[in-house]
């Protein structure tokens, strides 16, 4: 019997978090060492999984399935290519995020790291869960530590930002919870063997009317997370107030949970409803691309600028998902990685600047490239990756997205394409105001360039950005089969219509009611 690798993967950071509780809080080195060790182990295991993963197989791999809670709810985890690369992204960024916090976090370090590890456990769980209840538990686990990271270690308006974050995402989550419960009942009526099982729900034929309401509930929950306009306003606040490492994970991974939710649940479980709402959702995605870009153009705070750029980039990812062909969805998944890396790097760099200058206002800088040349070079690479310069990660994702979107509806691509102009405008505009021009004042003149530790944190991301740009097939090959399987589900090609006979339904409902009581 093989090791339960996926369970180990999410349990490792949890174990680390528990271990932290028993460590003395004054010994910062030990706390850091522990957090770094555990996130490092997770990364090693994730890489191992990545290597072992068979990209040619569509179904979930490393599957574990055991009886868990009563009533047929199983502990069911497994990853396909899409989950795999998102888990790898998470595992890759986590040690870097921990390392980057060394100077930034002065108080309550133990609790800070505790929440971080808890966050990692939650994220991995979300991407690995194949049971809706399990998925929901992990989904909520992610929410809480992030809210605390913002609310306790954030900037001046942290409490407001954290509250807004919790309330808005909780609002979505509750809708999703209600929908999950209804889904469980439906699957029980259909005589499914395992309750709330995602793979079974994928094959369940749900009446169109019911689909509509359930889909909307899921869609709102995920659209909040992505975020799609007009549900995006929690994001700039959360980003501006969050500590650097929090912003990194928020942008790089948490937003992807929304897109993942659409791809894994909302679109394949409710294909009819999805098809019905597709034009509206695509319109929102396009609006997000352009709106996010225009808003990024006029931001005064660098972090807010990057936050709105995420709204724009995620809009393109969503539009590609809604185009549902292999190229577009491959592009969307790849762009999730690329955006995670470039935006993560941007947030790390803004954090480095903020630690020195204690301001993020574009107007306060000028001539930074003269005093911090290495920093300027890193910032340039991050910006170029983000604006989709060929040779770097962003281009492959962006081009595949546009290709797929064009193939589905060429007019969507025409409407989305101004993003290449807008992204260059706001990123190079910020670059010019911060890096170029005469050295602004003595405060800027006194800034010291990046330290070796900071280079060690950011350089791996640059290497990966280049790798993704030059050798994208490393990742595309792992996701292709999974993506085409997902598309078959969305297009209902694999759907098996589960016949529901009345007595069975009654029995199932009875059993269900009994369980609830």
């Amino acid at each position: 019997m093989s090791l339960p690798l996926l369970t180990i993967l999410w349990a490792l950071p949890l174990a680390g978090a528990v271990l932290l509780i028993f460590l003395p809080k004054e010994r910062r080195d030990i706390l850091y060492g522990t957090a770094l060790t555990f996130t490092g182990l997770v990364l090693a295991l994730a890489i191992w999984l990545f290597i072992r993963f068979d990209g040619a197989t569509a179904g979930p791999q490393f599957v574990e399935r055991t009886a868990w809670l009563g009533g047929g709810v199983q502990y069911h985890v497994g990853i396909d290519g899409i989950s795999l690369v998102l888990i790898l992204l998470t595992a890759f960024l986590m040690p870097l995020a921990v390392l980057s916090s060394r100077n930034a976090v002065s108080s309550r370090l133990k609790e800070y790291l505790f929440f971080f590890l808890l966050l990692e456990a939650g994220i991995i769980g979300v991407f690995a869960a194949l049971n809706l209840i399990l998925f929901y538990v992990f989904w909520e686990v992610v929410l809480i530590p992030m809210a605390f990271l913002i609310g306790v270690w954030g900037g001046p308006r942290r409490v407001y930002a954290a509250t807004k974050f919790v309330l808005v995402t909780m609002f979505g989550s509750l809708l999703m919870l209600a929908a999950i419960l209804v889904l469980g009942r439906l699957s029980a009526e259909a005589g499914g063997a395992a309750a709330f099982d995602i793979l079974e729900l994928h094959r369940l034929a749900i009446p169109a009317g019911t689909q509509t309401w359930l889909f909307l509930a899921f869609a709102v929950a995920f659209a909040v997370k992505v975020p799609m306009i007009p549900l995006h306003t929690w994001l700039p606040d959360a980003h501006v107030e969050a500590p650097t490492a929090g912003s990194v994970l928020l942008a790089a991974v948490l937003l992807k949970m929304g897109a993942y939710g659409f791809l894994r649940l909302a679109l394949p479980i409710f294909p009819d409803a999805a098809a019905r709402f597709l034009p509206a959702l695509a319109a929102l995605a396009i609006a997000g691309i352009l709106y996010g870009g225009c808003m990024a153009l006029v931001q005064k705070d660098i972090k807010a600028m990057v936050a709105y750029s995420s709204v724009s980039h995620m809009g393109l990812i969503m539009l590609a998902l809604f185009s549902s062909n292999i190229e577009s969805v491959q592009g969307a998944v790849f762009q999730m990685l690329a955006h995670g890396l470039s935006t993560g790097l941007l947030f790390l760099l803004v954090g480095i600047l903020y630690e020195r200058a204690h301001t993020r206002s574009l107007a306060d800088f000028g001539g930074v490239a003269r005093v911090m040349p290495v920093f300027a070079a890193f910032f340039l690479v991050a910006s170029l990756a983000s604006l989709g310069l060929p040779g770097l990660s962003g281009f492959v994702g962006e081009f595949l997205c546009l290709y797929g979107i064009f193939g589905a509806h060429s007019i969507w691509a025409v409407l989305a394409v101004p993003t290449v102009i807008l992204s260059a405008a706001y990123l190079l505009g910020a670059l010019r105001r911060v890096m170029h021009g005469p050295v602004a004042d003595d405060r800027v003149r006194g800034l010291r360039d990046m330290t070796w530790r900071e280079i060690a944190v950011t350089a791996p991301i640059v290497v990966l950005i280049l790798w993704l740009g030059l050798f994208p097939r490393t990742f595309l090959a792992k996701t292709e089969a999974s993506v085409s399987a997902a598309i078959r589900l969305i297009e209902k090609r694999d759907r098996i219509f589960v016949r529901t006979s009345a007595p069975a339904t009654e029995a199932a409902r009875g059993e269900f009611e009994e369980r609830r009581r």
Partner: protein
Amino acid sequence: MDASWLIPLAPGLSAFLLIIFGRSLSRRLVTWLACGSVAVAFSFSLLSALRLRAAAGSVPYPARILLSWIRAGDFRADISFRFDPLAAVMVLVVTGVGLLIHVYSTGYMAREKGYARYFAALNLFTFSMLILVLASNFILMFVGWEGVGLCSYLLIGFWFEKPAAAKAGMKAFLVNRIGDAGFLLGILVLLFAVGSAEFSAVDQAVSGGAIAKSTATLAALLLFAGATGKSAQIPLHVWLPDAMEGPTPVSALIHAATMVTAGVYMVARMNALYAFSGTAAGVVAAVGAFTAVFAATIALVQNDIKRILAYSTISQLGYMFLGCGVGAYAAGIFHLVTHAFFKSLLFLAAGSVMHALSGELDIRRMGGLRHRLPLTYTAFLIGTLAIAGIPLFSGFFSKDAILSAAYAGGHRLLWAAGLLGAVLTAFYMFRLVFLAFHGGERTTPEVRDRIHESPSSMTVPLLILSGLAAMAGWIGIPAVLGEKADLLRRFLAPVIPVIRTPHAGSSSEWFLILTATSAAGLGLGLAWLFYQRWPGLPARFAAWCPGLHKILLKSYGVDEIYQAVLVRPLVGASELTYRRFDLGLIDGAVNGAGAATRFAGRLAASLQTGRIKDYALGFLLGTTIFLAWILL
């Protein structure tokens, strides 16, 4: 053995080393790395070109796949090169002129702080440009296309502490991106119409009738949008004059000889598509002819030596597009080659002037320099004779090739525009020569004392380029002067078929040569009258029609129009939307009026005990209750 795929390797490697280690290397080593790598690339180019010539006629030229790059569903893009005569001409120009300018730069930039940074970008540029011209498909071409744009951005903004330079770099990138948005869509249209991004597949689809005429036109026009950005044609020409903020060798290499010709190269590469579309070729010709005259009129009144040359570049690029548009693709490429020589010569000579005059750019404060800088003067004069189209100098042949193709194709209006442009070109160039090098010295005394001829690292490239600018025309002698003397066109024939080019006939060919020569002579003569014979005349003219003079001086106010019509409304509307809509409406709705807000407040207040343990406990409790509710 075919070694053409090795051409970009050395500059790429050198760029990589300079980016990573540049700051810790000695200047000497940087110099050797930078120049040596381009010299290696030039040698490989020469060898490959000779090999190609030896094996002439063995078409088709195979694409060499180096790396299978992107694969997703039906989409595939490879890193693959194809070395054919057109690519051979381009790599020779890029590495040849590039090498000379690298050498020149070692003298010109000798005292710069960012020496390694400069050469890193210059090497990266050479690498990207080679990728652009060697690519066998659109996707890889786009890699080079954007790569040269990046290097242009970095080098225009080389003196980034100067706000104008930083701004000019950004403007160049942004204006190019507008064109590139069209370029991207053009690639997509072709990809879906043809099913492949390979140039050979597009050519096959066109010749096999597998693509509808309307689709071909759409794709060709979208691609041309990218070309108007890169090659600074109307309406996207506005970035090039500002790009003169960069170091002068950069203006010579990137903003005159090579990068800005990428658009012309692309159109020539896709000649089958443009010819098939017809409409698209017409648009190319019209935009080119209009730009040629438009930019030349602006150059008439400018006083900044580099800006005059910049508008002249825009104008000459217009000629190249005019050539391509009327079906004379080989003539367009011919002018591209001669222009690369004489325009980089002019820029480098102008750089030598600036070097001598402590950075002076205004020709009103020059004068009489021919005695002080004889070598530079000779070089500049040869460049001027070439660009003005004085017979036997290179520009004469290439411009004549374009104009006679326009005439022979029946495009009389375009031909007349080209002829008018030729008069204007000769006029503004000789105005520049007379004002800067002839007449009395108008330099300030401090500057005058320090005037000196440039070091040999700068003058040797000037000498070589002078030779090329004078003689390069002999590779394209018109048919009337010798059968089979048109070497370039015959060399390019496998890529640019010489099909049904209407021949003008020998008498009209002589007529064309005569008119072109007269046009150049007219411009020269007028410049002599205005700036040598009666120096008071220009001021009288300006006073006679002040409105026109001001409009020309302001470059027709295109920048101001774009600011007022595009930039300011977009930023203003975004600002307003952000304040009123994003912060006001949506945020307000999310924050919730009334009950929701109070609820949030109460909830937040009771939650915020400040003790992490409470939070953790609450979290645990919540999860337990939730699970219990679900399962029990």
